[in-house]
């Protein structure tokens, strides 16, 4: 690379005003024009902080101490203000609801131009052409309320691209997107990269999903330091992912189970580039030796929905004729595209909304006349958005709230809260205010606040959004543990790994109807269900074909059974 770097960190250190330690340590990093970079790392490792340094939010909006140098296009950023930087680097924030400041799509895309005093006609012309690029030109007059998560993300993208910046920065673009929309988002980003040659930086936990398209370099950040800088093939072949607690692609895990030594030569960074000649035999042998586990849950029904239909406004149906039966001690996931009605379903179960038709039974008893409070004795719900549940400024009080309202003696509260905080990985933060936590940490606070109440049935809406693999595993293992003790667990999720790994059974919603209710491995290999519910075929399926194994579904099921046995040992 002989050209001049577009981004240049030299001995760069940053410490937030309220922190006792620096968050970024002594960074040295060069990024060249036109590169496409992925940044991964555990939650709280400083990825977003790095992004803030680039786009100028540090020091413009967050106070702190900076040492060392950061140059963009050869210019020291400390001599630029945020407006000058915004002409060079465009940022798409994780929270697309907050990024969407206009009343309609058109206004939002035009926001940067309005601030630049671009005259009306030119503005409309430019908005239309950018909207076409992201396929939003027919929705210019829609309000954010009428858009799906993916459409909001596209709008944010257009709003940033309209300024013709040189660098695009995406902070967790996939969080909260359903698998198919996430895949599309990665494709859009890649197309823009190919067409315009912009420099692209993506921060993301979902490594495998980003690797759906090419990436030039992957940076691994741990504890504020860059500990690896390599391409995808080298990274998955190295032990770094495992050491830092980042999830490797599922097919790589399968290869390792089959005792294949993953090397750089195998080009395992993307499933498309994987050379299977080194591993075909090993995979077949491994597959042949898996003993199927028995799955039948014959225990009595604990929760049953019968012909449930619901609409918020009485006009547009959100759920239509939903039927299902969940058995005691089961672990089930509910999946489906953005806006399919998953969260709504959980609200009906808890009595937050009243069904228009149909009945809900708990152990054969009709729940119709039970109030929210009475249902809450049985069913605990962790809502999708943590901010909607948190009502105390301090972590400890928040988790203790439900117990205090139930008049549990204070000594017992202390015991139970401490225990649950430990499980959720929050013990180091007991006396922090909630406002100093990252999104993933806040989410864990809400899980703790419900877990502490010991419900019979636990519903978690997107429990793993924004979590790194280590915490994700800890939370899920704990759920498995309480599930074994008899608690029924329902997971609403966009994470197909989660569904495969932890829930033998999946209920699939699309357009407010139930379109499948079967084994998770079957769902993820059924092309029609996948298309209808915006899911994504698992890479294990592709792997089985590459290895010459006919029955892909059976292979996926085999993988799950093997993994479960491994954990139970």
């Amino acid at each position, binding site marked *: 690379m002989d050209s001049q770097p577009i981004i240049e960190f030299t001995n760069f250190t940053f410490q937030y005003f309220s922190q006792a330690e620096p968050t970024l340590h002594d960074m040295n990093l060069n990024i060249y024009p036109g590169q496409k970079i992925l940044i991964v790392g555990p939650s709280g490792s400083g990825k977003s902080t790095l992004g803030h340094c680039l786009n100028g939010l540090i020091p413009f*909006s967050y106070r702190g101490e900076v040492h060392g140098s950061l140059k963009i296009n050869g210019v020291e950023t400390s001599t630029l203000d945020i407006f000058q930087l915004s002409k060079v680097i465009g940022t798409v924030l994780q929270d697309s609801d907050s990024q969407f400041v206009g*009343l309609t799509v058109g206004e939002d895309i035009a926001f940067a131009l*309005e601030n630049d005093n671009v005259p009306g006609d030119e503005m409309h012309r430019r908005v239309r052409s950018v909207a076409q690029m992201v396929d939003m030109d027919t929705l210019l007059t829609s309000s954010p309320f009428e858009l799906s998560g993916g459409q909001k993300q596209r709008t944010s993208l257009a709003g940033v691209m309209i300024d013709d910046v040189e660098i695009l920065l995406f902070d967790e673009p996939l969080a909260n997107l359903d698998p198919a929309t996430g895949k599309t988002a990665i494709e859009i980003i890649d197309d823009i990269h190919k067409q315009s040659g912009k420099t692209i930086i993506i921060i993301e936990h979902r490594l495998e999903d980003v690797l759906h398209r090419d990436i030039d370099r992957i940076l691994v950040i741990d504890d504020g330091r860059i500990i690896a800088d390599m391409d995808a093939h080298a990274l998955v072949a190295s032990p770094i992912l495992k050491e830092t607690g980042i999830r490797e692609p599922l097919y790589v895990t399968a290869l390792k189970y089959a005792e294949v030594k993953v090397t750089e030569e195998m080009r395992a960074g993307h499933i498309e580039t994987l050379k299977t000649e080194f591993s075909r035999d090993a995979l077949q042998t491994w597959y042949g030796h898996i003993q199927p586990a028995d799955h039948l849950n014959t225990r009595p029904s604990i929760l049953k929905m019968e012909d449930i239909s619901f609409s918020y406004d009485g006009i547009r149906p959100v759920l239509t004729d939903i039927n299902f039966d969940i058995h005691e001690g089961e672990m089930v996931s509910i999946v489906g595209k953005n806006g399919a009605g998953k969260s709504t379903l959980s609200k009906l179960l808890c009595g937050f909304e009243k069904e228009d038709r149909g009945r809900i039974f708990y152990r054969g008893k009709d729940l119709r006349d039970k109030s929210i409070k009475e249902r*809450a004795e049985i069913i605990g719900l962790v809502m999708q958005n943590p901010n909607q549940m948190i009502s105390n400024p301090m972590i400890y009080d928040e988790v203790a709230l439900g117990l205090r309202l139930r008049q549990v003696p204070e000594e017992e509260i202390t015991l139970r809260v401490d225990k649950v905080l430990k499980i959720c990985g929050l013990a180091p933060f007991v006396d922090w205010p909630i406002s100093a936590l990252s999104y993933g940490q806040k989410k864990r606070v809400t899980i703790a606040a419900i877990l502490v109440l010991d419900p019979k049935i636990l519903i978690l809406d997107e429990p793993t959004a924004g979590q790194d693999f280590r915490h994700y595993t800890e939370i899920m293992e704990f759920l498995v543990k309480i599930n074994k003790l008899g608690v029924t667990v329902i997971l609403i999720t966009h994470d197909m790994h989660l569904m495969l790994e932890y829930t033998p059974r999946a209920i699939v919603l699309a357009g407010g109807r139930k379109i499948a209710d079967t084994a998770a491995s079957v769902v993820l290999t059924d092309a029609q269900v996948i298309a209808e519910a915006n899911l994504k075929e698992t890479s294990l399926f592709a792997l089985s074909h590459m290895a010459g194994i006919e029955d892909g579904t059976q292979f996926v099921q085999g993988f799950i059974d093997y993994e479960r046995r491994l954990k139970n040992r």
Partner: protein
Amino acid sequence: MNMKMKLFSYNLADTPIHRLSGLTKLICFLFLTFAVMYSYDIRVTLAVMVFSILLMWVSKIRFSQVRLMVIYVLIFIVTNAVISFFFSPEYGTTIYGTSHEFAKIFGISLTYEQLFYQVTKMFKYASVIPLGMIFLLTTNPSEFASSLNGIGVNYKAAIAVALTLRYFPDIQRDYHDIYLSQQARGLELSSKAKFFDRFKNSLLIVIPLIFSTLDRVEVISNAMDLRGFSKNKTRTWYTSRKLSRQDVLALVVSGLIFIATVCVSVFINQSRFYNPFI
């Protein structure tokens, strides 16, 4: 508590009123309301009221859309009338300078002056309402901010209004969700609870709403700064439109009505009041 109520039931009908630009409608609204607020002449008030009801008809507003507002307004006007009578039963006499008594209740004399003053006041209040309704129901909220900026309001204040309209539905939904999730944690919100507990418990809903909003302020203002908000002294608006012939016509008509009202007061009544008693 009807949380499903829409903010503006802005309807997308295509009428001459809807086609006017937001800026025009805002200026006309201000002209006409100032006219009726300034004048205490029942003839002027009635004329404006008839005119605005006509406009409501033109803009195809159905009664069902405004029924709730009408009920609120009627309750308000009646209460106001009763209270102000008992507080100052002779205020009319003071204003008009004469006293024509026609009945007596509870030893308070009823005069034509008082009756006339109160009737005038009732119509004065009532006549503003249809104007407001037309404005709310035919103006695209997107155009509102640019219109405010158009009449000279600082663009930062105009953006604040736009943000209010943008985030009100979100906040309404958050409030509802917090309300439910707190109940699920065991919070008693029904009227069974004692007064003080109810007060404390409603705070338990309001506090998370406010604090999550404060967090959001940070994120949203970052997003706006990153896209260059407030770097210039002025800004343009995606939704502002050029004024058409109809816009000019509407502006002239409402301007004339305002001037006429002032003229009636200055030259005919020689005061803000129309006095039929001398």
